[in-house]
Structures are given as C-alpha cells and as structure tokens.
C-alpha cells in the first residue's frame, strides 16, 4: 500500500507565505486539489515534485523523506507542470525518448515505453511530427505521455486542463481516470467541472492552507440545502450580488435566472436545487468567487 505523507509543510517566499502548514496523507487514487488562483497549488506541487524545497515540514513516501530519497523518489514520480515547454525541433518520439533516458529507462525499455504512452494519449499518428506543429491540446497530451513514461507511482499534474477547449477537457478527464490505476494521482485545478466523477477525494486549498478534505459526494452533501435558484429583474441583480454568492446567471424570458449559494433562503420565491461542485466552490471560496465562476463557465 502506497502512502505519501505531507507533513506540515510551508513555503515562504521573501515576504509571501505561499503554503502554510499543509498536511495530508494520500494513498492510491485520484485526488483533486481545488483552489482559486494564488491558493498555493503550484507551490505545493513543486515541493511534491522535488524541484522546490519546503521552508519547513517534510514529505514522506512510505515513511522515507523524499529529500533524502532523491533520485529514488523521482524514479517513482511523474510530474506535469502547469506551464511547460517543448523542444520545438524535436519530434514526439525524440522528445519522449530523451525523457525516457532521463527517467532512467534503458534504450530497449525506452523504445517500447515511448510507443505505449504515445498510443495511450492517442498521438501515434503524429509521432514523427516536429513539436512546433503541435496544438495546445496535443502538447498537453504529450506532457501526460511524458509524465507516464516511467510508470510512476505518484503522478502530479498541475492544472492540466488550463487552456484546453471543452472537448479536449472531456477527453483529458477520461484519459486521466483511465490511467489512474493504482497510483497516487494529484490533480490541481481551479475548474470544478474537471474533478466531477474522477476524484476520489477533493482537497480544498485556500491561501496556502488545506481548508477541507472530503469526497465529492460529501462536498455536495455539505451544501445540499444551500443552493437556490430564482428569477429576478435585471435591476435587482447588483443588490443580490452584493449580499449573496451568486453563481450562474442566465437570461430567460421572464427576467434573469440566478443561482445563489446561501445558508438561508435568499428570496421568497427562491427554490432549492441540486448542488453541483461549482456551487461547492462558490460556497467555500467566497472572495475568489468571480474568478472561480468565470473559469467554471469557460
């Protein structure tokens, strides 16, 4: 049984506390790290990827400190950064072969494994093309292929769906659940729809700290009676937005249909509706509401 323990880690940049006393225990399965921009997701993941040292705290894989494990830890690691580049003049095969060697595969293994991962991410037709001709979605898939080369026990993917169109996002989500297997997969996002169905647990992160950890069902449950829908006049909208967390806004024939997350019934004619993870997001990340909703609506 695989166990990754994040033990009270913090990261401070000069004057900025990016991650504060974050602790979690992860075993096989897909975890979603959900939080608005600036929550510290990328910083946390970089520390998990052994490319950034925590200011304090440790990370343990099966009881061993990863900073001591070094190569051995990274041998079990697949990491896809939020933003990454490629060698424009490399073909996909050359690119992956290079990384296969970096990941310690020997020549023979590298050849077979490169084929396998290319198939997995559905890029085998484009294997001989130069990477400068790749689209954003193809680059992401290539990135996932790269992360999977060494069949990692721990897979860390930082906002893998950012910049993808909705169709590509769905495909990407499917791919991710397909490859989850018996690994620890930690996926960060600020887009809630990414994690519906695939995440075993959701870690909500805000201002550098873990504020809640639960399954998506539990999360939905926690806002069950707090999501409302009602139709209002256009001019009432600003007032409403001032007092409540307002989600989706939709123009309908009779006025404007708004979705509101609130502990109390906001208006007399508001009715309870089934919550989605977007509502959960709205509920937990009050200040960052605008950003979150906009991202969710993409």
């Amino acid at each position: 049984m695989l166990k990754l323990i994040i033990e009270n880690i913090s990261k401070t940049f000069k004057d900025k506390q990016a991650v504060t006393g974050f602790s979690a225990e992860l075993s096989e399965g897909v975890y979603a790290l959900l939080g608005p921009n600036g929550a510290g997701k990328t910083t946390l993941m970089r520390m998990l990827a052994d490319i950034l040292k925590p200011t304090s705290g440790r990370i343990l894989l099966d009881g061993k400190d990863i900073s001591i494990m070094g190569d051995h830890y990274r041998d079990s690691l697949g990491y896809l950064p939020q933003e990454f580049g490629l060698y424009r003049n490399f073909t996909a095969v050359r690119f992956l072969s290079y990384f296969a060697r970096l990941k310690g595969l020997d020549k023979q293994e590298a050849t077979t494994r490169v084929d396998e991962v290319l198939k997995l991410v559905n890029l085998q037709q484009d294997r001989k093309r130069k990477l400068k001709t790749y689209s954003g979605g193809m680059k992401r898939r290539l990135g996932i292929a790269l992360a999977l080369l060494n069949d990692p026990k721990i897979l860390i993917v930082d906002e893998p769906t950012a910049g993808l169109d909705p169709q590509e996002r769905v495909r990407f989500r499917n791919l991710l659940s397909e490859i989850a297997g018996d690994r620890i997969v930690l996926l960060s996002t600020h887009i809630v729809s990414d994690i519906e169905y695939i995440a075993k647990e959701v870690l909500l992160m805000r201002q550098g700290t873990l504020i809640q950890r639960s399954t998506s069902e539990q999360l939905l449950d926690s806002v069950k009676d707090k999501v409302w829908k009602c139709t209002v006049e256009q001019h009432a909208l600003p007032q409403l937005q001032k007092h409540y967390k307002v989600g989706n806004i939709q123009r309908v024939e009779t006025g404007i249909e708004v979705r509101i997350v609130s502990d109390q019934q906001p208006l007399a004619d508001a009715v309870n509706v089934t919550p989605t993870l977007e509502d959960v997001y709205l509920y937990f990340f009050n200040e960052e509401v605008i950003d979150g909703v906009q991202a969710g609506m993409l």
Partner: protein
Amino acid sequence: MYRQECYKIFSKKSIYLVFITIVLLLVYVHQLPTDMTMRESVFEELEETWGGPVTEEKVERARESMNAADAGEVSNHTFELRATDYVQFLVTGAAMQKQDQSERLTMLEAEMHDFDEGTYEHREAAIEHDMLQALDDVHGFYLIRSWREMFELIEPTTHVLLLSILIFLGLSPVFADEYTNRTTDLILATKHGKTKLVSAKLLASLSYIVIVFLSLQIINSFLNLLKFGGIAGWDAPIQGISSGLDSLSRLSYDGSPYNFDVWQFFLLTIALQLFASIAVGVIVLLLSFLTKNTMITFFVSSIIIATPALLQQLGTTDGFLGYLTDFSFLKLMQVSTLFTQFQAYNLFDYPVLYPYLLFILFAVVTGLLIMLTYRLFRNQQISH
C-alpha cells in the same frame, strides 16, 4: 541522453554558417601570396649547404657572399640568387641569436653570482640558465615549411577570435535554452535530471569543442601543406622558426628557451589549445546556466575573453590588472605565444614557468567550475 544533447547543439544552423565562413576566411588568407614559402626545390639544395646549426665557417661564408651581392659583384637577380640571399640572411640571423644566447648565459651567471642561493632571483636566473644551457646548438638554418603557420589559425588573436565565436555560438544555449524552452521543471523532476543530465551536457559540449577544434586544425594544416608544399622541418628545433621566416603569425621562437622539436611543440600546442578551448567552454556553460539567456551568455563570454586585449591596448598592464591579463582566458588560448620567451612567476619564492603555471591554474579553475556547475544545477529551486 548524451545523443540528444549533441543533437540539441548540432541542430543549430548558425554554427554551420559560421564554420563555413571561417573556413572561407582561412582559404582566402592562405592563398594570399607569401614571399618565401620555401616550396621550391632550390631550398632543398640550399639546406644541404647551409642547413643545421650555424658554424663560424657558415657565417663567414654567408657574410662574404652577402657583401659580394651588395657590392653588385654578383648581379643577375634570378630567383635562385634571391633564395640564396634569403637563406644566408637566415644563417646570419641565427648566428646573432646564438650570440645573444651566450651573452644572456653570461648575464645569468653573473646574476646567480650576485644573489645568494635560496633567493628567488637566484632561482629564477638558475632556471633560465639551465634551460638555455640545455639548448644544444639549436640556432641555425632549417628548411621549415608548413610548420611556421600551423600553430594557430592565421595568428594568435584571430585564432582566439575564430575559436571563441564557435564555442560561444555552440555552447551558450546549452543550459539557457532549457529555461527559454521552459523545460527545466520537466527535467529536474526526473530521476537523472539533476546530475546525469549535467554530465550529458558537459560531454556533448566537450564533443562539440573537440569536433570544431580538430576540424579547424585539420583544415588549417591542410591549407598550410598546400601553401608551403610539405612537412619539411618537423624535426628541427623550434628555434629554427625565426623572425626571418615569412609567416602570418609573425611569431618567432629563435629566442625561446624551450627545448622542443617542431613536431613536439606542435603536439603540445594542439593539446594545450584544446584544453584552453575546453576551459573556455566550461565558463560558457556556467554562464549559460547562471544567466539563463543565450544572448547574455554570448555577450558576457565575449567580454571575459576580450577584456585583457583591451587592457593591453590601453597599456594598463601593471600590478593587479597585469596579473588579470597574464592569467586570462585570452592568454590561455594564445598558446603559441606563451613559449616564445622566458617568463616565470614567483610562487612561494619558487619560480614557475609562466605557461605551465597558467595551465595548472586553469586546470584547477576549470575543475572547480565544473563542480560548481553540478552543484548549482542540482540545488536549483524552481519558483518562477
């Protein structure tokens, strides 16, 4: 990994463009006419008569013959006569060098007498004295063809310029490109991305330098063979490469205290130049890592190489700046200039010959810089 690192370096088109330009320049320069290449067979005959160490008798004959020519007793300026005159001129020149050497020996003996044993001055004089003493009848006329221009590309400063451009061009991107391409995060999170990658990059860079260096050497040697028509003189003492010989570099070794045959000196300079190129390569790599920018690396590397030349031009070569100039990458790369005269440095009261000190120093520095590169790369933090 090594192969792909090589691919990254060698897939840059600019290096081929510059390489070809350099080769064209070499070809152009080598077809410029040289007065006396000694290609002609007449020089082989002249060597029979005048070749080898100077003797009283040869000098005497040479002087007489030259005086006769000057007096117009022998007219009729055929090439043969001009060649003879030229060789006689070299013979008398060698005689003067020989004279200088014996005077220098006397002077050094006096110095050794004046200073107590155990003083630095005494030791320095003793070393030079022993070196000169060990030179056994090295002055004379030797038929030296290609070798006089084989020790550098055109001349020492162009040599540095041409090689540096190629090294900067090839190696500036080695680390910097990973940052420009934003691939460092990917690399550092892999098993071997923190250490073995650096080895692969160093090895690929080394391969690049060796290939560039040797190709230029081979082309240069070939062009010289074409120009001078042979390898005659390979077993002559380097003192045979005198200031009287027509050569692009204008370097002469007739006052050199070093006891090398031409072929030995050729191998030595090649080895040291290769080492110098590698040392320069290592500093470029470190800069490439530190600046994370190809252009800046190119720029800073150029400044590092060129500054001593500027200081020399400005004449500020005293004291600390003088040391900086003497122990600079520029001097290190100008290997062929290091052995033309005696120069020693005081190291804890012991004189150490300048070229050897320079190389030992840079071997140590290069080793340290390599270690530093490994260390910095391994410990870098990604947080941009």
